């Protein structure tokens, strides 16, 4: 195990931000910490990185690892160019080869704006520069704190492809937090956190299987007859439509075949990460 968190706890005064979280991270794995705002994701991440000390519990690395961190906000200097920013950070590490910045800029596609000032870059360009900065010391583990928040769909895709490629090709261990749930599909290990506690973990498919109900919506000319025919409780009934939350696809097939004469149309949608997430964390905003 590359990294293990045992009973990690952090309190701020009365408030318990992280409550006895256990984590095991294997080398080369891709872990996503998922949770609503204020769930304790970033606090957990900061303790794993070593930027804040846990109130109780501990973080154990199996050797002294090199860490790379992409922070939620920008931590590079707006007034400096991309090249200056990266060269200066590289200079603050002990064993960074002289051509590291050039290599990374080619690898991450930064060559076109290396001499542009950081504050003139687009959000997606900035994110790539941030990732390049995190990779300067050739880290064993890459932490990313909500790396795709506020980016358009194309850029998000590009960033995911990049991170996955790095994980595959360089056997990089990736740990990230996010709240765009559909993106969790890329992770080997999804950990859902809320109120500082781990609510569930597994692959995205496992979580969807376990926690996300499939949704069947049927359009029918005779709503009352159909409701009488089916002994399940519908989640929604309108003048022409009935909707059900179903545990499996088979249940949907059973309903559809048994009532095919009453059905003018239907829509079946398998459970998404969003459904699993809402099932786990509730619908309340905070």
């Amino acid at each position, binding site marked *: 195990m590359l990294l293990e968190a045992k009973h990690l706890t952090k309190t701020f005064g009365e408030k318990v931000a992280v409550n006895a979280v256990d984590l095991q991270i294997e080398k080369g794995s891709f872990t996503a910490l998922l949770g609503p705002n204020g769930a304790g994701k970033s606090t957990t991440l900061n303790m794993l*990185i070593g*930027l804040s000390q846990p109130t109780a519990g501990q973080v154990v690395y199996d050797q002294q690892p090199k860490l790379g*961190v992409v922070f939620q906000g920008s*931590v590079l*200097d707006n007034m400096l160019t991309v090249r200056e920013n990266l060269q*200066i*950070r590289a200079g*603050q590490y*002990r064993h960074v080869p002289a051509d590291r910045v050039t290599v990374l800029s080619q690898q991450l596609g930064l060559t076109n704006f290396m001499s542009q000032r950081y504050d003139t870059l687009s959000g997606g360009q900035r994110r790539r520069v941030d990732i390049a900065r995190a990779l300067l010391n050739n880290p064993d583990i890459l932490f990313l704190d909500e790396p795709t928040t506020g980016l358009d769909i194309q850029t998000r895709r590009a960033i995911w492809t990049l991170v996955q490629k790095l994980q595959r090709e360089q056997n990089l261990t990736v740990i990230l937090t996010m709240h765009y749930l559909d993106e969790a599909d890329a992770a080997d290990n999804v950990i859902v956190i809320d109120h500082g506690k781990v609510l569930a973990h597994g692959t995205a498919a496992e979580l969807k299987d376990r926690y996300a109900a499939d949704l069947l919506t049927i359009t029918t000319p005779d709503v009352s007859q159909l409701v009488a025919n089916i002994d399940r409780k519908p989640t929604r009934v309108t003048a022409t439509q009935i909707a059900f939350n179903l545990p499996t696809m088979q249940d949907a097939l059973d309903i559809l075949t048994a009532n095919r004469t009453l059905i003018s149309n239907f829509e079946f949608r398998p459970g998404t990460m969003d459904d699993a997430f809402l099932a786990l964390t509730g619908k309340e905003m905070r």
Partner: protein
Amino acid sequence: MTAMIKRNLLLYFRDWSGVFFSLLGALISFILYLVFLKQNMLSSWHQVPDAKVLLDTWLIGGTLAITGITTTLSSLALMVTDKADHIAEDLELTDAGPLRLFASYLSSAAVIGFLMQLAMFVIMWGGFYVTDGLTLSVTAVLNTLGLMVFSSLLATVVNAIFIRGIHSVDSLGKLATIIGTATGFLVGTYIPIGLLPSFAQNLVKFIPGSYVAALYREFLMGAKLDVAFGENTAARTSFDKLMGIRLNWSTLLTQQETYHIMGLMLIGAAVLAFGPEWLRIRRRRRVVRER
């Protein structure tokens, strides 16, 4: 550490308006003097020979001391903004280590303090050369340059003590305003020390910048005063005391004594600035080891 110093210098000098206002802060006393005070002070000095040039050099001395204090402070502001923008967290991840990071903020501030004093010196001397034909000897210039180095080091560590307690950009601005306003009085640039009430005179002696200002005046005015006062030591002593050219402890301080006092202040301030940082790091290490 060199990378970090380079970064801090780049950030300071790339922000042109920042550099300009930083200089303007120091230029204010210079301009105020020209507009409001010069005629007034000259008329009360009519029996002093070469009064014009003496006043000019007196002002240069005080203004350089102020410049050292305000420009190093505005450069150290980077430490606060880095913390506020979470850049400090990113810097802590590098191999540089907190003590070296702290030292590089201080080093770059000292470099900036020196360069800005140099710029101010050139501007003021140039101005007075044109208007009053002010000339300075090579010795005076060399001594002044050496003092600039010491002055910026001293101002940097003293400011570093204050800035350690500042955590928001807002309170930083307020601190800068307070220091910028107070300095002119505290180092006796706006009003000669001898004209202050005795409490204020004693207060001035607790301010490191006063000793810097006094030494600047002594270096810049010394030769001219020798000529002006000749053998009249009593008049010379009372003039030195009045204008803050030499500060008065039990007797008027000599150059060497002033340098010694400034050296002790520098060491004391360095202990106060680095001490808490060092303790914080040690405490954190101990916490980590216990786990």
